[in-house]
């Protein structure tokens, strides 16, 4: 193929960001096209069916399953209150009468005279879908959700945990290679998105949770700390639903790795601005990377995000994403077309990267990612 495609993380000062906000089940859309929204606004709502409870009344009433319906005091679809009698038997001696009461407020879902099972359902729970970013509604998908759009600075991380949040950008590290310490995290960081350097240790993350920071954006963390935060070894990178008291976004990888200068400068340059971010990551088909969206005031001269990616070409900035030079950033010098033997003896497609110090390295194309703008 003429082009060499490689995964890339987007780091851009100005783009049009469109977020598709879809309910998990059909519901009601509460906004209109053209309406301005802020991150916390509810744009759509659905009713999640209530929990189902099972009651086997055959055993409780000492009856046959086929007699179930006959002993019911309440019928299917009827509303019941907690502790209300829903079934009873009719013994010869009233003293032996047994009654079955509802364990919940809800409705009778079904009564089975095959299994003697009564299913009760709790009332539905409302589910609110927030806009997530400050912007304008540009599309309404009937009964499903909306598309919110805003001009923004935008950067992606490589991995994250914790869900969507918003806050004010607050740089904590002075340089991209700085390892944060707990003393760097202050009570005034409550509700803020903290921008770090190369590494955040477990005490740093704990301190950030303690001061109620909204998020930490950092070059890397150690896997052992991730295990401690989650309380388990993460087997597959599908995240975003963790309830850990903070959103954590790593931009480079696992270990202590300086944040790419471009990412660091962009985020530090937005100090004091409101941003939305999400740690949700899915590294499978339909890749989702964590992100930071910093809405801008004006949309002038912006290009839409999520467009088709172009092939790599000489001059493009790249990040090496595998040992032995993991984390180094350089520019593509050339893209030799022929397969090249590497130290493992595999024959693969490579590229030559030149670094700021003038040195060069030949790297498998699979082991770099472009830094997209």
């Amino acid at each position, binding site marked *: 193929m003429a082009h060499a495609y490689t995964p890339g993380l987007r780091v851009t000062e100005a783009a049009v960001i469109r977020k598709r906000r879809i309910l998990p089940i059909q519901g009601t859309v509460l906004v209109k096209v053209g309406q301005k929204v802020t991150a916390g606004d509810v744009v759509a709502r659905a009713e999640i069916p209530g929990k189902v409870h099972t009651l086997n009344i055959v055993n409780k009433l000492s009856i046959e*399953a086929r007699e179930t319906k006959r002993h019911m005091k309440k019928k299917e679809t009827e509303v019941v209150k907690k502790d209300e009698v829903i079934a009873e038997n009719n013994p010869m001696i009233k003293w032996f009468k047994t009654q079955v009461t509802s364990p919940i407020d809800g409705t009778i879902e079904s009564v089975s005279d095959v299994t003697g099972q009564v299913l009760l359902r709790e009332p539905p729970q409302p589910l609110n879908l927030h806009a997530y970013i400050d912007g304008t509604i540009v599309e309404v998908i009937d009964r499903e959700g909306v598309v919110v759009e805003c001009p923004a600075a935008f950067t992606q991380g490589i991995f994250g945990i914790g869900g969507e949040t918003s806050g004010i950008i607050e740089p904590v590290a002075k340089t991209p290679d700085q390892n944060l310490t707990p003393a760097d995290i202050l009570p005034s960081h409550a509700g803020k998105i903290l921008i770090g350097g190369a590494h955040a240790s477990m005490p740093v993350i704990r301190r950030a949770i303690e001061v109620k920071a909204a998020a930490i954006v950092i070059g890397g963390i150690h896997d052992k700390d991730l295990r401690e935060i989650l309380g388990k070894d993460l*087997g597959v990178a599908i995240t975003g639903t963790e309830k850990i008291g903070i959103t954590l976004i790593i931009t480079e990888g696992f270990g202590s790795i300086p944040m790419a200068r471009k990412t660091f400068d962009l985020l530090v340059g937005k100090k004091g601005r409101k941003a939305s971010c999400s740690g949700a990551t899915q590294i499978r088909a339909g890749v989702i990377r964590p992100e930071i969206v910093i809405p801008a005031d004006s949309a002038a001269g912006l290009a839409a995000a999520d467009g088709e990616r172009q092939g790599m070409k000489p001059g493009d900035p790249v990040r090496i994403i595998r040992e032995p030079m993991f984390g180094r950033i350089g520019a593509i010098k050339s893209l030799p077309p022929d397969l090249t033997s590497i130290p493992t003896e595999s024959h693969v497609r490579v590229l030559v990267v030149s670094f700021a110090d003038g040195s060069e390295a030949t790297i498998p194309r699979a082991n770099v990612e472009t830094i997209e703008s």
Partner: protein
Amino acid sequence: MADRPLNVVIATDCGSTTTKAILIEKVGDTYRQTFRGEAPTTVEAPFEDVTKGVLNSIQEIEELSGRKILDGEKIITPAVGNVGVDIYVSTSSAGGGLQMMVAGAVAAMTGESAQRCALGGGAIVMDVLASNDGRAGFEKIERIRQLRPDMLLLSGGTDGGTVSHVVEMAEYISAADPKPRLGIGYKLPIIYAGNKDAAKRVEEILGEKMALEITDNIRPTLERENLMPARHRIHDLFLHHVMQQAPGYKKLIAMCGAPIIPTPAAVGDIIERVAKKENINVLGVDIGGATTDVFSVFQKIFNRTVSANLGMSYSISNVLAEAGLDNIMRWVPFDLDEQDLRNRIKNKMIRPTTIPFTVDELMIEQAIAREALRLALDQHKALAVGLKGIQQERSISDAFAQTASGQSLINMMDLNLVIGSGGILSHAPRRVQSMVMMTDSYQLTGITRLAVDSIFMMPHLGVLATVNEKAATDAFEHDCMVYLGTCIAPVGIAKDGEKCLDYKLTMPGGKVIQESLAYGELKLLKLDVGQTAQFEGNPAKGFDLGAGKGKVLTATIHGGVGGILIDTRGRPLILPTDKKQRVATLTKWSKALDLYPELK
């Protein structure tokens, strides 16, 4: 079914990340795979049309072969000269493949049969529900609600057996009202393949809410499993319901000259055909980035399992979580800091397309692969079992052996051929590395032939076999299989240096190699692809090559690109726990086989 007359075939496999196309042409009397092309799969945004990736991969074949296959977005049929093809066929696992939930009355009986049926149909089984699975009713309902499967399979009860347990499961499913994974506003397909006496009640409960299909009971009696009718129904529903919701599949179905089948089902089909044709026991494995599929045919019974979270990239971190650090490190011939190894594995997980650049990185990946293969086979052995709960006629010797129903069908001593597939096995820089990875993780015993799938074309050949078996078989034998050689490994344990095996090999041309090997050795002898040698092995007392402890075994040994691997490290294979000793032992074996470049 008679073969359809074909001369030129184009076949694709639409995987989660890559769509792979191959061209098969009739050369003389034989079908050969001649060209291949690949392109990124385009099921996801921004394309959301699987056919774009298919056309791109075919376009690459056009460029390489000079054959004009496409007229715009149409495939030209039939083939005339250097234009067009006679048929286009495809498999698919894009978008995460077919994901199913199954339910039965009793977990170890109909629950297990339903699981085997869905797996054999090419599905990933998200959960198995049963009346006695230990979960309370509301927990089952909650679980069904959380899952968003593509399809459900409900079984339960033998014909004339329990009705209430089956109806109970149907009631739970109805209350949970699960939603399909793909598409909003269409009914989730469910297959009922249980007690025929409960079918009417099941229809009353589920018929309105879901797209219910009723088929023959998968367990009509305790002694008999009847999986094929339900398996065929799975394929029908996959084609006509599930795939209709996936982007571009309506177009793809129209392009194909035969029904599209799930990728693992096609691989299973070709492995089953090989076993049947050669009358041998076969084990097949496809170790991918996210999942590892294991296929087996033992005693003519086919089984497939998928270990959904054991893989070499997306799921690599889960291999560490399940196997444990010590089990991975036992295969690494150098010492490594735990934090460093953990970070490396996580970095591979978050950047799954990267490849090892240095030899030590390659050794680590191959160590992890050994554990993924081992764990996947363990899971396979647990499901590839005889039917449970059946009455067995026992002889006195059976009674002494304490055999029970439901024993694993996988007896490694009876295994004739292992076929490996997936990047880590098919593209290992040295073929002998694949041989040793499979030997180590499966602890091959007796005499076992090994092969790898050259470019992962088993799916293509599986679907092609449904229209022309000869075309599929020819390409399988000539272009798909890369024979690595044969492993000879006696079972038994001794102390290092003690006598283990005397053997005599009569090589092609009559040269005789006669040798005595001590316990704890690995030796590789050259025997090319297509060549055979006569082997006579005399194991030491306490060791068994397949003829019994200490008994002589003779056999014809097949060569391969690796050769003959004689393994006297003992079975079970026990590796030193002391770090220094482990590194020394692994280094000795690596050198003996010239396994890695820098250990020459």
